[in-house]
Each structure stands twice: as structure tokens, then as C-alpha cells.
């Protein structure tokens, strides 16, 4: 029993990272039907931005850890959002305006991700960076179940991010515009809505939360390297697809599902089996429901 609760907490924490990153994939896909393959690397850039701002605030300015953290969160989110918006502006928008086929935009996204990775490698070198400790980690033990303040914060952040995005997409006019674009891009400008502005908002949201995920990840696993975003990005993308890409509930659920499967596999099998079994399970889910858990089969309308 204790073991199960412990594993659930671990799964929620691990799944939170997938969920936060998957939200960005699904938002951009929902609006542009673009699989933004650079998104995992935007997460990596977010972790590095967090690293540099945390080091600067702690060491150069000598601020106390909790103030540094309080400043680090908005700084990382804003700067990472700017990276996402820049990618949209210089790489995706020109292609879109020329009416390029989606395939070319996806390939462009893939290349943007590689450029981010290797620019990082070229500028900061291959050596790993150790993330400074911002706040002291407290370990709590209740009835044989251990958790830390950081783990709880990660899980709470993922839930808050989801609630915020869900509110935004269902209740605000910007969110309605995002859903409208996913249904029929043609009619959106006819209502006086500037299409490009809505797309920029989408990238701000997706990249901002990827930055937040990067900060939390770096705090939880304080070793940074240029390729850290690649595999976790792929996995978050798969989580978004399994959940039903284009639907934020799907991304959220898919992220936690993948986290849970991975943790549960490790609990019962050797850890080398983790990805093999995790992806087999996801494959079976997709075979059973190819549009993902929340996905609806799209009918093309004329």
C-alpha cells in the first residue's frame, strides 16, 4: 500500500514534466496543425536560461535563494517565450505566408531544434552544468511515504498550468480564437481577428510553460546538457498524441499516463525495460484509439 502511494507520487511528479511540455506541443498543433519538433529543445533552452539567471541572481547579486527563485520563474518563462516567438517569426511564419506545405514546416521545426542543440554545444561546450540549489529541499515522511517540497511544487505547478490553460481556451476570446483557427483558419480574419497575433500568443503560452518545465526539471535533476531536451521532447510529443493532440486535456492526461507507465514499469521490472514496455503500452493504446484518448476523428469539410 505504502509502496503504491509512493509510486503514485513519483509518477505524478515525473508525469508533470511530460504534461507541461506536451501542453506546448498540443497548443501549437491545435492552432497551426504543426508538430513543433523544436519544442523539446525549447525546454532545454528554458533550463539553460534558468541556469544562467539563477547563477546570476545567486552568485553575482548574492540574493537569498527564495528571492532568486521568485525572480527566476518569470524571467525564465518570459525569455523562453521569446525564444519560441522568435522561432515562429523567423522560421515558421515566412513559410506559412508563402503557402508552403505542412511537411516543409515540420522539417524546418526539426532543424530549428537541432540548431538550438548545437548552438548550445558550440557556445557553452559539451561539459555539463550543475544547477545551483535555490531552495533547501525538505524531505517529509508520512507513514512510510516520502516526498519533498520540490516534488509537491512540481505537481502543483503542472495542475495550475493546466487549469490556467483550460480556462484560457474555454473562457477567453483569445482562447476561442485559438479553437476557431483549429477548425477553420479562413474565417478568423473575417471577424477582425489578426491571425498572426493569435499564433504568437500560442507560442508564448507553449514556450513559456516549456521554460517553466525547464526550470523545475533543472531544480529536480540539477545536471544540464545540450541534448537533455531531445528524448524528453520526443516522449512528451508521444504523450500529447496518445492523449489526443490538439486537446489540452489530452496532453495533460497523456503526460501523466506516460509518467505513470514508466514509474510502474521500473517498480516491477529492471529499469532497462522502462522505455520498451512504456512505448509498447502507448502503441497498444494508439492501435485501439488512433486519434488518442481525447481526439476526435476529423472529417474534412468543404
Amino acid at each position: 500500500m505504502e509502496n503504491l502511494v509512493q509510486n503514485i507520487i513519483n509518477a505524478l511528479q515525473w508525469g508533470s514534466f511530460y504534461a507541461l511540455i506536451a501542453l506546448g506541443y498540443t497548443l501549437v498543433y491545435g492552432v497551426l496543425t504543426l508538430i513543433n519538433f523544436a519544442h523539446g529543445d525549447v525546454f532545454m533552452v528554458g533550463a539553460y536560461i534558468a541556469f544562467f539567471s539563477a547563477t546570476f541572481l545567486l552568485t553575482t547579486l548574492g540574493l537569498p535563494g527564495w528571492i532568486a527563485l521568485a525572480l527566476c520563474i518569470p524571467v525564465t518563462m518570459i525569455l523562453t517565450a521569446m525564444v519560441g516567438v522568435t522561432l515562429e517569426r523567423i522560421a515558421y511564419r515566412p513559410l506559412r505566408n508563402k503557402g508552403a506545405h505542412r511537411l516543409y514546416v515540420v522539417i524546418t521545426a526539426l532543424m530549428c531544434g537541432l540548431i538550438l542543440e548545437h548552438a548550445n554545444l558550440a557556445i557553452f561546450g559539451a561539459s555539463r552544468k550543475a544547477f545551483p540549489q535555490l531552495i533547501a529541499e525538505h524531505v517529509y515522511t508520512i507513514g512510510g511515504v516520502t516526498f519533498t517540497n520540490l516534488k509537491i511544487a512540481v505537481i502543483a505547478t503542472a495542475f495550475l498550468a493546466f487549469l490556467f490553460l483550460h480556462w484560457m481556451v474555454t473562457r477567453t476570446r483569445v482562447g476561442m480564437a485559438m479553437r476557431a483557427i483549429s477548425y477553420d483558419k479562413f474565417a478568423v480574419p473575417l471577424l477582425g481577428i489578426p491571425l498572426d497575433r493569435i499564433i504568437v500568443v500560442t507560442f508564448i503560452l507553449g514556450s513559456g510553460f516549456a521554460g517553466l518545465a525547464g526550470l523545475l526539471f533543472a531544480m529536480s535533476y540539477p545536471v544540464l546538457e545540450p541534448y537533455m531536451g531531445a528524448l524528453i521532447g520526443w516522449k512528451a510529443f508521444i504523450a500529447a498524441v496518445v492523449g489526443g493532440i490538439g486537446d489540452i486535456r489530452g496532453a495533460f492526461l497523456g503526460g501523466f499516463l506516460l509518467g505513470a507507465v514508466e514509474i510502474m514499469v521500473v517498480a516491477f521490472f529492471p529499469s532497462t525495460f522502462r522505455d520498451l514496455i512504456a512505448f509498447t503500452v502507448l502503441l497498444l493504446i494508439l492501435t485501439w484509439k488512433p486519434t488518442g484518448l481525447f481526439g476526435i476523428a476529423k472529417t474534412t469539410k468543404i
Partner: protein
Amino acid sequence: MLLSIENLCVKYGNIQPLHGITFHVNEGEIVTLIGANGAGKTTILYSIARLPPPEAPRVISGDIVFQGQSILQTTPSDVVKNLHLALSPEGRRIFGNLTVWENLKLATYARAKEADLGKEYDYVFTLFPRLKERRNQRSESLSGGEQQMLAVGRALMTGCKTLLLDEPSMGLAPVLKYELFRKLKQLNEEGMTILLVEQNANLALHLAHRGYVLDTGTIVAAGTSAELLGNPEVKKAYLGG
């Protein structure tokens, strides 16, 4: 003159659907463009709405003048926001994944914050009571006629003073057609300027004050509705004898 199209020529790629179109719309009028499929009617509306690429027809010569100013450099969202000109496109193009209410609310995106929207929602719901009954339904579950009403209601919620309508009667049962056209007449009597594109020439000419007949990108006849209805050639080609 509210809107005037001056010797307009446009291209899609290498295809030129309009060859020097000239016509105008006065404030408070209903003007109709009639003609067969492929005559260039929709292209004219897209040109006025300044749609972005790839749908946008590229203007190669001529001008579109609204309230005395050329609007060729205006963005599509500014056409709605600043010129109060809204297009209800062919095939309705409502957002099926949003509810009726969300479709209407979304149309107020560019409105000034202080605008009294409550009154305008009431106006749309009085004009089309069916929309009020179905306000919380996903709009793709509406019937064709209701979807058309939503498309018109949505255009109205942008706060437009000039309404461009593309084939509003298409696919509607006769009873619904007449009902919709009565509503359009009511809108016009309350001050709305309407530019109506229709294949159903008979219906359109009975609603409009004036009309233009289009054939493969040029205007071949013009006049008041009565004149066009009495014109033997128009009768033969577009009014079924």
C-alpha cells in the same frame, strides 16, 4: 458613394478572374451581384474583404475605394475593425467546434471595450430567435438554415455597418430562404448597407434596389432591380425565361 470598385483586375497565380470591374454601392442600399458560377462574384467579395494569402486575389490594377479612401493596403482585420465592413462567406464557415454563443462572442474580438454588447446580442437573438434557443449547442449540430442565420448573426456582432453576403440562400429550403431574405430586408430598413452575391437571381433582384450582372469577370448589365427583371436578355440567361 460608400464603396466603389474602380476598374478592378485581379489574379490568382496566372489566372485572371476579373477583367476591369467597376461598380458602386451607396449608403443604405442593397446592391446585388448576380451571375453564373465562376463569373467572379466571390472573388470580388474576397478582394473587398482584403483576405490574406493564399485565398487573397492579387490586385493587378484598379482600386477599391471605401468612404473616399483606397483600402488596398488595409489588413483584413482592420477592414472589420476600422471600416465596419463584414463578410459572411459562402458555405457559412461557422466554427463548428464552438457553441452558437461562442461564435457570436468571438465576433466581438476587435470591438471597443466600452461597446454595449448586451443590446447587440439581444438584437441578433430577436432577429433570429432560433439562435437563442440553441445558444449553448455546438454549432455544427445546427441545421443548414440555422447555420446561415448564425453566419449572418456573427457578421453583425462584429459591429458592421456594411454587410457583404456570399450566397446566403445556398442549400436552404424555400421557406427558410424567404425567411432569411425578409430578415435581410429588415436589417436594411434599420440602416444596414448590403452587398449581396447570389446565384438565385430572381430572389436577389426582388430584395435589392440595384443590381449588376457578371459574366466571366466583366459586368455585362447594370440597373435598378426593376430594369434588370424586365431586361429580356437577363430574363433569358438568369431568370429562367
